[in-house]
């Protein structure tokens, strides 16, 4: 049951082979047993979860089930869920019980899915290793000495360890794709604007996008169908006719043009990752894809541009945490300014404080043109590079991350080294394109390698189609960490 696909689970629930309460109980037990070791969850609330499962059973019994009814889904602790502690991995929100649901949570609730728990993450989604959480680091199920990636590290690790059939994440610079790659699971960041940001705690609003993490591309398609949809409460939500992301899964890949950006295969890419990705591309060829070389010449500039734009937006978004209306307030203060300054110094961790300071600096008087405006222009150049590449190919393929999961603590003291590990994922966010990562082998230390597929705007179905056909021809996505294999 822990390895069943979402479609199989839905069939088992509909056919009364198992109840949602039983299925949910099974995953809850696994999550509770593994949490002291892996630290995937910030909050588990069995009573609340099982009540929702029993409600799903009633709905199924009444014949009103939908594809996700009764299926437990874990949510990154960035999504506000009514009645649930919603911390965003921060001391600042360590006392925040959300009074409302994010749009994504509303959608899952409406589909009858069950909230399994809230997953650990880098504080305010700022990080690539899940070491920046106020609730401690998550450990990689493949190797407890390795990071799971971040910022959606708890979600990816929970899916890899079979603690949940599926989870949600958010991706501002790679935070769904990179942990999916490092944990050997599948994850997709949709086109910017498809998934509502309402109730998804803001980091960098022009880049943030929610998406699912699961064990296969076919499962991602089912989850995406539930998550995508117009929402008037998000001013950048796109009004589009609903699309069934599962409809093209089985299409042939004959003649599909795969572009390989030469900048993704050069200096900085580890040999073990390069080998696995090359083999994956050979498999895609066997499936009928044609491979063409493309160029994304400004790739190198995506990191500097991101580390101006994202902190600038963060410094503005996180100004709301002042200890007045909600969130942490310091115990001792002299006056209002002192209360703000101490509450924010104590409520935010080191990386969040650092990015707020960077953002404040680049937006401060006299520096705006040199940093913020220049970064916005480079953002345009990067988007143009992708547009030019997509004139020559249908999908872009490459590594998700330049190396396999690194050791806990290895990069924690060097922010610049940490930032550079997002080189292949950030450009996608700056351009607003969809990107996914699927497992494609193992590298050093038996740690998983991820293959990234990037699509043109609204190309999700085509990307999932290619990923699904690849997963039908290979079994990397079925592998699971040794210690977590017990049913």
């Amino acid at each position: 049951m822990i390895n069943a696909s979402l479609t199989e689970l839905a069939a088992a629930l509909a056919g009364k082979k198992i109840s949602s309460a039983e299925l949910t109980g099974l995953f809850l037990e696994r999550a509770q047993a593994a949490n002291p070791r892996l630290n995937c969850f910030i909050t588990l609330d069995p009573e609340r979860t099982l009540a929702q499962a029993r409600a799903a059973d009633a709905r199924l019994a009444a014949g009103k089930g939908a594809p996700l009814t009764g299926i437990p889904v874990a949510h990154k602790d960035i999504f506000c869920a009514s009645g649930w502690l919603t911390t965003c991995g921060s001391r600042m929100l360590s006392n925040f019980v959300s009074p409302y649901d994010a749009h994504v949570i509303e959608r899952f609730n409406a589909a009858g899915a069950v909230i399994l728990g809230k997953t650990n993450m880098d504080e305010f989604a700022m990080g690539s290793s899940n070491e920046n959480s106020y609730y401690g680091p998550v450990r990689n199920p493949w190797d407890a000495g390795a990071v799971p990636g971040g910022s959606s590290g708890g979600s990816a690790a929970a899916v890899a360890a079979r603690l949940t059939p599926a989870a949600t994440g958010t991706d501002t610079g790679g935070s769904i794709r990179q942990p999916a790659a490092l944990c050997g699971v599948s994850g997709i960041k949709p086109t910017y604007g498809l998934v509502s940001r309402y109730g998804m705690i803001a980091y960098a609003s022009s880049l943030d996008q929610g998406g699912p993490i699961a064990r296969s591309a076919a499962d991602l398609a089912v989850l995406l169908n539930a998550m995508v949809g117009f929402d008037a409460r998000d001013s950048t939500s796109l009004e589009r006719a609903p699309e069934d992301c599962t409809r093209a899964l089985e299409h042939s890949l004959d003649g599909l043009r795969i572009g390989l950006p030469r900048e993704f295969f050069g200096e900085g890419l580890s040999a073990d990752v390069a080998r696995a990705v090359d083999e994956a591309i050979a498999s895609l060829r066997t499936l009928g894809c044609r491979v063409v070389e493309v160029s994304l010449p400004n790739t190198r500039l995506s990191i500097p541009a991101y580390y101006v734009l994202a902190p600038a937006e963060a410094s503005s978004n996180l100004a709301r945490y002042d200890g007045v209306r909600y969130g942490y307030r310091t115990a001792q203060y002299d006056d209002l300014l002192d209360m703000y300054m101490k509450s924010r110094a104590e409520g935010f961790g080191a990386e969040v404080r650092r990015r707020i300071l960077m953002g404040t600096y680049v937006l401060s008087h006299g520096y705006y043109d040199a940093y913020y405006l220049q970064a916005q222009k480079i953002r345009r150049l990067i988007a143009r590079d992708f547009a030019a590449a997509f004139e020559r190919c249908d999908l872009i393929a490459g590594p998700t991350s330049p190396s396999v999961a690194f050791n806990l603590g290895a990069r924690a003291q060097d922010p610049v080294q940490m930032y550079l590990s997002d080189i292949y994922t950030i450009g996608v966010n700056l351009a607003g394109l969809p990107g996914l990562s699927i497992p494609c082998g193992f590298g050093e230390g038996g740690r998983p390698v991820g293959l990234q597929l990037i699509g043109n705007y609204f190309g999700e179905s085509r990307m999932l189609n290619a990923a699904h056909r690849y997963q039908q021809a290979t079994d990397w996505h079925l592998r699971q960490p040794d210690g977590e294999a017990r049913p």
Partner: protein
Amino acid sequence: MLLSVEDVQRIATLARIAVPERDIDRIAGELQAIFGLIEQMQAVDTRGVEPMAHAQDVVLRLRPDAVSESDRREQFQAVAASVEAGLYLVPKVIE
């Protein structure tokens, strides 16, 4: 560009984040290293390039001027640090 101690203090005040004296040098050094990375951008000729704020060209939607939210003040104030008579309490700002 070189970040001075005064720069860090000024930014920290603007950002409303207290920074202890003893940490300022370390923070200046870390920010300096990050800005070393960011400075790569300055070598790029971007004359004539339109700045890009967003991936999609969306315009703000208009909506009918109708009440869409209900009064949930009690629930929203339940998560505040200090509340009295429906008001948020903060230290006195006007003498």
